[in-house]
């Protein structure tokens, strides 16, 4: 059987800020095609720094980040952003143009694509994020935060990176907007072939969408594995000052009754309840 080739390989990565803060220590990580990953951890744990190393915004102090055949140390930012896109937490930091069309076209024009291809990519990206045509001539700053976030994501999508990192996609959004954005990211992952990495503190969102969790603390990876498996490690999660979603905590407390401690959703808990209830009825 062939071993799949990782899209990104991080080897012994260390990163130190100019103020001397050692933000990442000996990080080893592999990211594969089709994955939906959540980076979790308390503030200052190194999630954002690691993400910025993945797309070449930060060059490693030591160690390597290899994206397909490119080493981030020796590759230009233009080469890197074609493979790894980064959506910033605050869309206001990344909107530079006077209308949404130019905003989405900004990236493709930076990488010197011919204008026909720019047009094609803008239309495609706007369609994927569900940005109606009537907004093309609007100034991005006058849109709602949800729409600004969509424009920001579309502007990265237009570069067609294989991997998209989204920093705190649900911060400042209400529940409906949060699920809309996350459903959209899931769609990108499942139907458009993008690898998605989200950085978040929102554990119910992680439970509902991410298939793999990388938990970080003090610049190190504390846990890396399937979401349910990581959430089972309560002692380890306590180190990151994060708690699994309430439904997982409930399942962990009643696991003696036969519930899976890695339960992530209410639907799964209900299904287990029905199954256990049926078994009990049969026994009676």
């Amino acid at each position: 059987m062939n071993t799949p080739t990782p899209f990104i390989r991080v080897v012994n990565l260390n990163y130190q800020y100019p103020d001397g803060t050692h933000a990442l220590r000996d990080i080893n990580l592999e990211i594969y095609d089709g994955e939906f990953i959540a980076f979790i951890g308390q503030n200052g744990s190194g999630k954002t720094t690691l993400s910025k190393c993945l797309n070449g915004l930060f060059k490693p102090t030591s160690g390597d980040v290899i994206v397909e055949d490119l080493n981030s140390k020796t590759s230009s930012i233009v080469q890197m952003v074609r493979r790894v896109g980064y959506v910033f937490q605050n869309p206001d930091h990344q909107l530079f143009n006077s209308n949404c069309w130019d905003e989405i076209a900004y990236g493709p024009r930076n990488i010197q694509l011919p204008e026909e291809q720019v047009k094609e990519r803008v239309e495609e990206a706007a369609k994927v994020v569900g940005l109606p045509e009537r907004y093309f001539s609007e100034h991005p700053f006058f849109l709602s935060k949800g729409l600004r976030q969509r424009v920001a994501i579309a502007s990265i999508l237009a570069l067609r990176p294989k991997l998209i990192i989204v920093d705190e996609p649900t911060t400042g959004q209400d529940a409906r907007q949060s699920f809309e954005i996350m459903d959209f990211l899931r769609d990108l992952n499942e139907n458009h072939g993008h690898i998605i990495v989200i950085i978040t503190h929102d554990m119910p969102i992680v439970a509902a969408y991410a298939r793999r969790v990388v938990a970080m603390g003090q610049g190190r990876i504390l846990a890396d594995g399937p979401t349910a498996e990581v959430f089972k490690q309560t002692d380890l999660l306590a180190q990151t000052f994060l708690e699994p979603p309430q439904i997982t905590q409930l399942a962990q407390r009643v696991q003696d009754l036969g519930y899976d401690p890695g339960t992530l959703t209410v639907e799964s808990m209900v299904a287990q309840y029905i199954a256990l209830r049926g078994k009990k009825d049969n026994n009676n």
Partner: protein
Amino acid sequence: MNKTLLGYVPKESPIYLIHPFVKLYFLLVVSLFPMFITQPEANLVIMAVILLLMLWSRVDLRILRIYVPVAIAMGWIILLSYTVLGGTHPEFELLANVLGIKIYWERLRDGIVVYCRILPMIATMVFFLTTSRERDVIVAMRSIRIPFLVTYVFAMALRASGMVLEDFQIVRQAEQARGFDTTGKSLGYKIRKYVMYMIPLFALSLRRTEEFTNALVARGYAFTGEAAKVKRADYILTHYSFRLYDGILVALISILFIVILALRYGYNAFSLESSPLINWLYQILR
């Protein structure tokens, strides 16, 4: 490391033993020294002393690299202003006539003098900015009883500029994340593209200003202090104490300034006639 207004200084730096007022006093008084010193070499000595003080303060001197192109560009501008664009002066000594442009010794000499005066002034400012935090400036201003309103506005401006700088870094990264790369591009291209930074920075500043104002009003803040009807407490000053050696340093800086003034006006010291560097240059160029 502690972040200062212009870089980082280790927490163990001896500069933190000095009261912020002394640092502000140093900036205000020492930057006046070159105004009373004409000799370029004396001004260069002041600059060397300031660099030594930066070393003593354990400032990462790599920060100075960003000033090298500025210093060189400024030198050229001053030189060209005084020589090529200096006009016709029959009373001055002509050194050369290049394609009708007359280069006079006196104008060249004055250009060098002005440049050597500006360099230590800038060095003093850089020393202050690399060793002071936002709070140091406020403490220094309140220590000398600058009215609250002035300190307040200044503090807000400092705070806002700090935030703008942080935003600038993020905006720069956001542009890079979308393939913005200026490597090998012309200066015109860079300027045109850098103007784009202004759009999100301006919009963010406007939003921040509104948030600042609302947050302050929500907490009953008012310039006049009438909201609380009590004397405003300078809590920030309680973190610092003015020690004996701070007083000695202020006295030393003041004495040094008086000595410079006395030498300059009483004994005609630091004059160009007694400058070995200027005399040497004159011998070479004449």
